[in-house]
C-alpha cells in the first residue's frame, strides 16, 4: 500500500498511486451514482420475479409474466405465415406466365423460390443450380425433360422415377451388366457415341455399332442421337454429359445404365411454393 497524502492545491486526498509524477485525486463519487447502483439491484430483484431467471436442478424459475422465448418464436412464425398469406394467395391465383410477367410478383416468387431451392434442391443440384455428375445442371438450355415453365412445374410436382403415379419415367437398360450386349458391342457403341458427340473416336468401330444403335438405342435417343425430351432421353450429340464425357464414363453408363431419381414435391410443398420454385428455376435457366 502506497502512502496516501493530501494534495496541496486542492486539499483532496490522493489514492497514493503515482505514474510518472502524476497522482490521482481520491474524489468521492456523487451520491446519485450510489442511487443508480441501488436502483440496478432493485431492478434485478424485480426482474427475477417477473422473468425466467435462476437455473435449478429440474428446470428454472419461470417468472410470473410467463415469458418464453420459444413461445415468442412460435408466435412470430405464425405472424410471418399470416403475413405471407397475402403473397401466397397472389401466387395461387396467378398463372405461371402471369407471375413471370408481373415484376412485383416475380420478385416475390424469386425470393420464395430461392429460399426453398436452397433448403431442398441445393443438396443435389448445388446452391447455384449448376448440378454435379449425375445431377443435371439447371442453368443451361439443355433439358432432359421439358424445359418450359410449365414443363419444369410438372417435373417438380411429379418428380423423376419417383415411384408415384404420373411421375416422369424412362429407363435405360444396363446393356453390359444384364448381358443384353457383349463387351465388344458395348465398346463399339462407346466409339459411336464419341463420334456422334464430337467427331472423335474410332470410326471403324463406330460403323460396326450403327446397326446395334438402330436396334437398341434409337427408339429413345433417336436415329441421329438427338434425344427426346418427352421421355427424358438425352441428346447424345451435344457437349453436355450427365455422367461424364470421357470414353470410360460413357462406356460405364452404357454398361450399367444408371437412372437418376428426383423426388416428387407435390405432397411436400403447397401449390404456391411449387409455383414460386418453378418460376425461380425457369428464371435461373434464362427463361427459355
Amino acid at each position: 500500500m502506497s502512502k496516501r497524502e493530501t494534495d496541496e492545491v486542492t486539499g483532496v486526498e490522493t489514492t497514493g498511486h503515482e505514474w510518472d509524477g502524476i497522482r490521482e485525486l481520491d474524489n468521492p463519487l456523487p451520491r446519485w451514482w450510489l442511487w443508480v447502483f441501488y436502483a440496478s439491484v432493485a431492478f434485478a430483484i424485480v426482474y427475477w420475479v417477473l422473468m425466467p431467471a435462476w437455473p435449478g436442478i429440474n428446470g428454472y424459475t419461470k417468472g410470473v409474466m410467463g415469458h418464453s422465448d420459444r413461445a415468442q418464436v412460435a408466435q412470430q412464425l405464425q405472424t410471418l405465415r399470416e403475413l405471407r398469406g397475402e403473397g401466397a394467395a397472389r401466387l395461387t391465383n396467378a398463372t405461371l406466365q402471369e407471375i413471370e410477367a408481373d415484376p412485383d410478383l416475380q420478385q416475390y416468387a424469386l425470393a420464395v423460390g430461392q429460399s426453398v431451392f436452397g433448403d431442398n434442391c441445393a443438396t443435389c443440384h448445388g446452391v447455384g443450380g449448376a448440378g454435379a455428375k449425375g445431377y443435371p445442371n439447371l442453368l443451361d438450355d439443355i433439358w432432359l425433360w421439358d424445359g418450359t415453365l410449365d414443363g419444369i412445374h410438372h417435373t417438380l410436382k411429379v418428380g423423376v422415377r419417383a415411384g408415384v403415379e404420373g411421375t416422369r419415367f424412362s429407363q435405360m437398360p444396363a446393356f453390359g451388366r444384364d448381358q443384353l450386349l457383349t463387351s465388344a458391342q458395348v465398346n463399339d457403341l462407346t466409339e459411336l457415341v464419341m463420334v456422334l458427340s464430337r467427331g472423335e473416336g474410332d470410326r471403324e468401330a463406330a460403323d460396326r455399332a450403327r446397326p446395334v444403335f438402330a436396334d437398341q438405342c434409337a427408339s429413345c435417343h433417336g436415329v441421329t442421337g438427338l434425344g427426346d425430351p418427352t421421355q427424358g432421353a438425352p441428346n447424345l450429340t451435344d457437349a453436355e454429359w450427365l455422367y461424364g464425357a470421357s470414353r470410360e464414363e460413357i462406356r460405364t453408363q452404357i454398361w450399367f445404365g444408371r437412372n437418376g431419381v428426383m423426388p416428387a414435391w407435390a405432397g411436400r410443398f403447397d401449390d404456391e411454393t411449387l409455383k414460386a420454385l418453378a418460376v425461380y428455376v425457369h428464371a435461373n435457366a434464362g427463361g427459355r
Partner: protein
Amino acid sequence: MTVVIDRTKPPEGDPAPKGPRSAAARARGKGDAGGGLYKPRAPIYPKLVQGRWRNIKWILLVLTLAVYYVTPWIRWDRPGDLPDQAVLVDFAGRRFYFFFIQLWPQEVYFITGLLVIAALALFLTSALFGRLWCGYACPQTVWTDLYIYIERMFEGDRNARMKLDASPVSFNKAWRKGGKHATWLAVAFGTGGAWIFYFHDAPSLLRDFWVGQAPMTAYVSCAILTFTTYALAGTMREQVCIYMCPWPRIQGAMLDQHSLQVTYRFDRGEPRAPHKKGATWDGRGDCIDCNACVVVCPMGIDIRNGSQLECINCGLCVDACDEIMVKVGRPKGLIAYDTDAAVAARACGEKPVYKLVRPRTLYYAGALALVGGLTLWGLATRSPMDVHVLRDRNPTFVRMQDGDIRNSYTLKIANRTFEPVIAQVAFGGVSGAELKTPGVEVTQGALALTVEPNQVRTVRAFVTAPSASLLQANMPATFTVQAAGATQVVTTSFLSGAANAR
C-alpha cells in the same frame, strides 16, 4: 517574462468567508477532506440576473426551443405517396428527408460528414471563443434554464427558494413544490412528445398517439425522453455537465491561453475586500467581495477561482458583476469574456494582445473547410441513379447446347428521384453478346426497365455470347444504364470458360 499566477489559494489572511458561499464550497466543507465516500449533491439556487448575456440567453432559448418544436410540423410537398414532412427520419421506409435532400441508408456517409463537421465546428468555436456551446446552445443548458424559470415562477427567486426548502411541510410548500414538479413533467412530456414527430408523419402521429394507435416505439421513446428531460433538467442539472458529459474534459485540449473564456480579471479585482460608500479605491482591487457572481452561477462555482471544469461560460456572472460595478461607480468588465494571455499581460502592465489567428485555429478551420467542402461536393454531385452489377459466381459461366457461353448478372438500379424512370440497360464489350432477362422486353439490344420512384429494382440479366467471339478467359465488359438524362457505365467482366476444359 512568465508570470506564475496562483489563483487557487484564498487571499492571504482571509478570515472565514461571510455571506453566501458557492455550492462547491459548501460541499467541500462537509465531512472530511474528500467529502466521504459519496458526495451528496449540494443544491444550487441560482439568482435571477438581468443584463446583456442573460438577454442573449433568453433569445437563444426561445429560438432553439422553437426550432425543436416547430421543425417536424413544417410541410414539404413531395409527389405521390411520399411523406410531405420537411424533416423526417423514416425508419420504416428507410429514408431520411431534409427539405429538398433525401438520403438513403447507404449514403450514411453524409451523416458521418455532418457529425465530423459538427465536431470540428465545436473545436474551432471552443478554441476561439471558449465553451459557447455549453453556455448557450447545449440542450442541457437550454432545458435547465427553462426549468429554473419554471422553478422561479412557483417558488420565487434564490432567497425565497432557500427559505422554502428550509421550511417545514406546509400547504404553501406543498402546492408550490407540487405545481413546479407538475409543470416540469408537462414540459418533459412535451419534449419527449415532440421528439417522436421527427420519425413519423407529425399530424397523423399526433392523432394516433392519443387514440392509442401509434407504434410502440413512439410511446417508449416519449416515455424515456420524458423521464430523462425531467431528471436531467430538473434534478441533475450541473451533475450532468460535471459527471456525465465527456466534453468538459475533452475541451481542455481545445483551449489555450488565447481562447476567450469567462474570466475574473484578478489583476484588477485583487486584493478584494468589502467596500463602504465613499471610501477610497486606492491600494485595493475593484472586487468588493459581494458574491453576486457566486449566487447567480447555475454551476455553483466561484469564477474568481479561475478557469474551472465546471464553468459552462454562460456569462451570467458577467451580468451580475457589471450591475454591481455600475452601482459602486467602477468600470464594467471586472468579470468578462477575456483570454488568459490578455489577463496575464495586463497583470505585468503590458498591452493585452488578442490572437484569433493561431496555428490551432488555422488547423481547425482548415479541417472544417475540407470536410465541409467534401460533404457539400458529394451532395451536389450526387447521382439520382445508382447502379450495381453483381456477377454470378456460382457457377461462373454456363455452357449452352450450341457451345455458346452464358454469364448471369444481378443488376440493382436505384431511382432516387420522385418520378418513375425507364432505365435503358445495354451490355457491351463482347461482340455478338445477347442480353435478356425473363419477363422484360428487349429493344435494340437494350433492356427497358421501369424503376418506381424512390425504389430499387433488382433483375437477373443473362448475357449469352457465341463461342467464336470469346477470345480470352476473362473479357472486360460494361453495363451502360441510361435513365432520366443521366448515363452510368459500370465495368464488370465476362468469363468465357476458355480456362475450363470442356
